């Protein structure tokens, strides 16, 4: 009993000291808080008005253990609601909520080098227009990752840094499986037998990236490989074989930040090539059968290399400062995303694939915003955005491809 009291008292005292240590003038701990909330109304040209919001809360802590050693910890809560998104990424009504933790240890080696190992976890819930319970989301995802990065500073004055980073993540989808494959084709191969538990899309993601930056110019080259643990490639007979699915993505990006007179420009351009060995079987309905899987207008069609594409993105955000001391600023942004599939044919409105041209998507966004600084830590922004999406895919029952959308929203940010 005495021991309990003693330990309780000691702990309370130590806790008090720790609290004192994290106080503002502490040299060891630096806290970081950032809360951003956006709520917008969306009006697509086909379909109805809907509203969606984004909430992002970050809590971080920087600990300086020694002169050359630092530890960063970050907890991030992100809710992203309904909204417009580039074609073939998600439906308007998809929502997701994620919790993630990242810890990174930084060690400076000499004046110019820095090495950064890190570890991250995240838990992601997703929900579609069916409003299922969060824990039942088909695409709920858990990830665990390890990273190792190195920085080399080659120009101290102009902030010239080159970063080489390697990352590996295991991604698990505990709720996702596909029963349709077994119903459409008898269980002829082991891969065609659906699992009653989830895990069909479980994968290991490995990424290597090289990112130089100098004098407010930055760029990068990234290579990502996804190895699927359970998902196999579907053959042109309609059944799943024994080869595991593998996806490879290479991307290059470049951008800079410049201030010209009252304008602040941050243009960025990127080019991505995504290649996968997976094919796709399109069923027009449950129970559809076909004698010729290679015919684009039959009820069951085989599409080879359905997921290969090349994507170019250009984004030019621009801020106009009305005056140096003004609380107000006007901002604008122009974004273009263009995706060209290398093998996927375009589809007509009746869900038939047309031989000849391959599918191409284009999405242009024009945004105008007014920003007001409430004080040195808080900011609010009113924005309006025009989205024009077009594609030669005309089958839009489930995923929208061609539409014009208007967005009007408000966003608050508190950052310390």
């Amino acid at each position, binding site marked *: 009993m005495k021991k309990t009291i003693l330990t309780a008292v000691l702990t309370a005292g130590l806790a008090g000291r720790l609290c004192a240590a994290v106080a503002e003038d502490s040299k060891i701990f630096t806290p970081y808080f950032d809360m951003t909330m956006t709520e917008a109304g969306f009006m*697509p040209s086909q379909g109805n008005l809907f509203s969606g919001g984004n909430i992002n809360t970050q809590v971080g802590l920087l600990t300086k253990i020694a002169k050359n050693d630092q530890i960063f910890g970050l907890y991030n809560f992100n809710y992203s609601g309904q909204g417009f998104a580039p074609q073939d990424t998600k439906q308007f009504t998809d929502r997701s909520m994620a919790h993630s933790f990242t810890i990174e240890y930084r060690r400076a080696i000499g004046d110019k080098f820095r090495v950064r190992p890190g570890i991250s976890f995240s838990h992601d819930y997703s929900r579609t227009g069916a409003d299922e319970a969060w824990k039942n989301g088909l695409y709920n995802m858990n990830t665990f990752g390890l990273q190792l990065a190195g920085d080399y500073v080659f120009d101290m004055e102009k902030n010239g840094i080159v970063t080489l980073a390697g990352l590996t993540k295991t991604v698990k989808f505990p709720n996702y499986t596909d029963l349709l494959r077994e119903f459409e084709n008898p269980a002829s191969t082991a891969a065609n037998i659906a699992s*009653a538990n989830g895990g069909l899309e479980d994968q290991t993601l490995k990424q290597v990236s090289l990112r130089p930056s100098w004098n407010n110019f930055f760029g990068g080259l990234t290579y990502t490989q996804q190895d699927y643990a359970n998902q196999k490639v579907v053959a042109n007979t309609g059944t799943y074989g024994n080869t595991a699915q593998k996806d490879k993505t290479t991307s290059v990006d470049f951008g800079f930040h410049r201030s010209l007179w009252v304008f602040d420009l941050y243009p960025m351009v990127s080019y991505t090539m995504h290649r996968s060995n997976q094919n796709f079987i399109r069923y027009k309905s449950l129970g559809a059968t076909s004698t010729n899987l290679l015919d684009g207008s039959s009820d069951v069609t085989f599409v080879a290399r359905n997921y290969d594409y090349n994507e170019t993105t250009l984004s030019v955000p621009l801020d106009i400062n009305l005056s140096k001391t003004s609380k107000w600023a006007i901002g604008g942004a122009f974004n273009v995303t263009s995706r060209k599939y290398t093998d996927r044919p375009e589809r007509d409105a009746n869900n038939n694939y047309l031989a000849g041209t391959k599918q191409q998507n284009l999405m242009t966004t024009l945004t105008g915003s007014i920003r007001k600084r409430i004080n040195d830590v808080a900011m609010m922004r009113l924005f309006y955005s025009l989205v024009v999406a077009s594609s030669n895919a005309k089958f839009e029952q489930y995923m929208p491809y061609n539409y014009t959308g208007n967005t009007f929203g408000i966003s608050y940010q508190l950052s310390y």
Partner: protein
Amino acid sequence: MRTKITLFCEYFFAFSLFLLIALPSGLLAGESKILSMSGTVEVRPTREGQWTAASENMEIGEGGAIRTGAGGGAVMLMPNKTKVWLKESSSLELEQRQTLASRLALVFGRIKVRVPHLLRKERFEVRTPSAVCAVRGTEFTLGTDEEGKMDLQVLFGEVKLKFAIPPDRGSDEFSIPQGQGLRLEEKGREAKPALLTPKAEREALENWNPGLKPAERQKDLRQKENDRAQIREFAKVTTNSENTVKSFLNVVKESDLEAGRTLNDVHGNLVRVDQRMVRPEPDQIQFFNLVKRPVYGNNGSSLADGGFKYNGAQGVPERLDYMQMTMAFSKDLPQSLEQWPSFFSDNSIKPSWASFVLANRTDASEIFFVAQGYKYDAPRDMLVNNPWVLTVDGTTPMLDTNPDDRNVIMTGILKDGGAVTALDGLNRISKLQVLDAGAGNGTLVYSNADRSASSGISVGGPGGNVVWAVKTDNASSYSSSNNRPDNAPLVQYQADMYDIGNQQGAGANEYMWFAKENYVIGNGGNIRTASDFTNSSSDLFTLLKSNALESVMYIKKSVSNDPGTIITGQNAKADISVSDYFAYGGGAAGSGTNIDVVFIPDLMVAAVQRMLPAITNLKD
């Protein structure tokens, strides 16, 4: 044996350990002393003493004073752990320094005071020519000149300020919390607290230690800002990296709505249920519920309770069942799901036909199914299910006075080997491309694609056996839910007698019993009771998402084949044979199987919300 003295020593040790750790490392010395200084600093150690040059660690007693010249600066630590920084050209007097009361007087200049938490009854005040500030657990800066013009900035905690000369207008007492300050232009003038400007806050927060160059004072603050910028950068990179995984999800959405769940069924088998709603044609909706069990066993425990016998094998691997509903409308549906509610509220939209199919699809070459078809009857303005459904399009519908206007089911075993495979046959049945063969015994033929004529191919395939039957009008139904005590488990056993081909005879095998066992189960396979729904403090939404409906269906033979003798529910139960009507799996006649579907309400809520007007119209 522990003596009182040892006990006391232990407690004393513990207490001092506590003091040592919990209180900041401290000096419990008696007087205030100078911690550090730079430039011209003078001290008057006691009230009547002389001004002498100061030195580090010099003590100042009660009534003493300290002053700095131009370019000087000093830091003083008081016995109660209060720290006072003096800037250049400042003069401070220690008017009172008792255990429970301390008062400093700022004659002129600028000071920064950090008062830690005080003892319970302890008071701490700082006086200027114009006002008195009382503080506890506070950090603030104070500046004054000899005429009384003063400037207060509160950084942490709260300061209670009282003017020495009450102003002409306005209050003479203020409680100023952190982040605010007060500036008094002239003694006796009115003044109010105002928010600190960022510049004033920075100046107050910077390092006031003496001997530092101006550029160095903000070094710590800048370092903190750098650190925060680094974390911001780190946070941005981390968020980007989290988003890469999402962006690599290959999404090809081929359904309007989809949901899925893994749970246990009432027999204890692991079940995976996938539901989807798709549109095979622009004017059709197809909703299907796929059920898969890696292993299926049914121990037949329901039989003793009033249920029915399962004659199939135990431990069936990769068992597949499904339920499918297709409905076609008179107009094409809008592309977007969100526009459906207003589409359906339009009274000119009518459903043109609908079908419900439940099947055991474990073996794709031998499928046991039960189906119901509905066609739109224009004169009666509703979907009807009666023998008229199995006639070619264009036939006059039955009047509601027609005695044959009763429910019709199609059921049986589809087999491969004929002109139409079993899978394709089921597909055609779900599109209602079947007609009565006209042989008078309930057999069916496939129609052509637009239901205008027969194709001549009989339904079932070689060795198969598919018939249609109409519900008898005179036999009693069997339902076990009558006379259940309150709060019994939500289980219903139910059976109806059907007349094959509407022969209205009394021969062998002319009648069948369509028997159902319905259970409301939770995710663990446990059977729910009504009070689980009405007396839980959870909302209905959460409840729906953790429950499911399981329906086990059989087609059983009739013992008597004479509906006239079945007058009570007990007669009905006795007439339901334990043998199945159809032979399945190469077994002897009477050894059939069942359809065991688990239905989750996940999509129903979403679909109902969008089609609510249509459903209310249909009901009417």
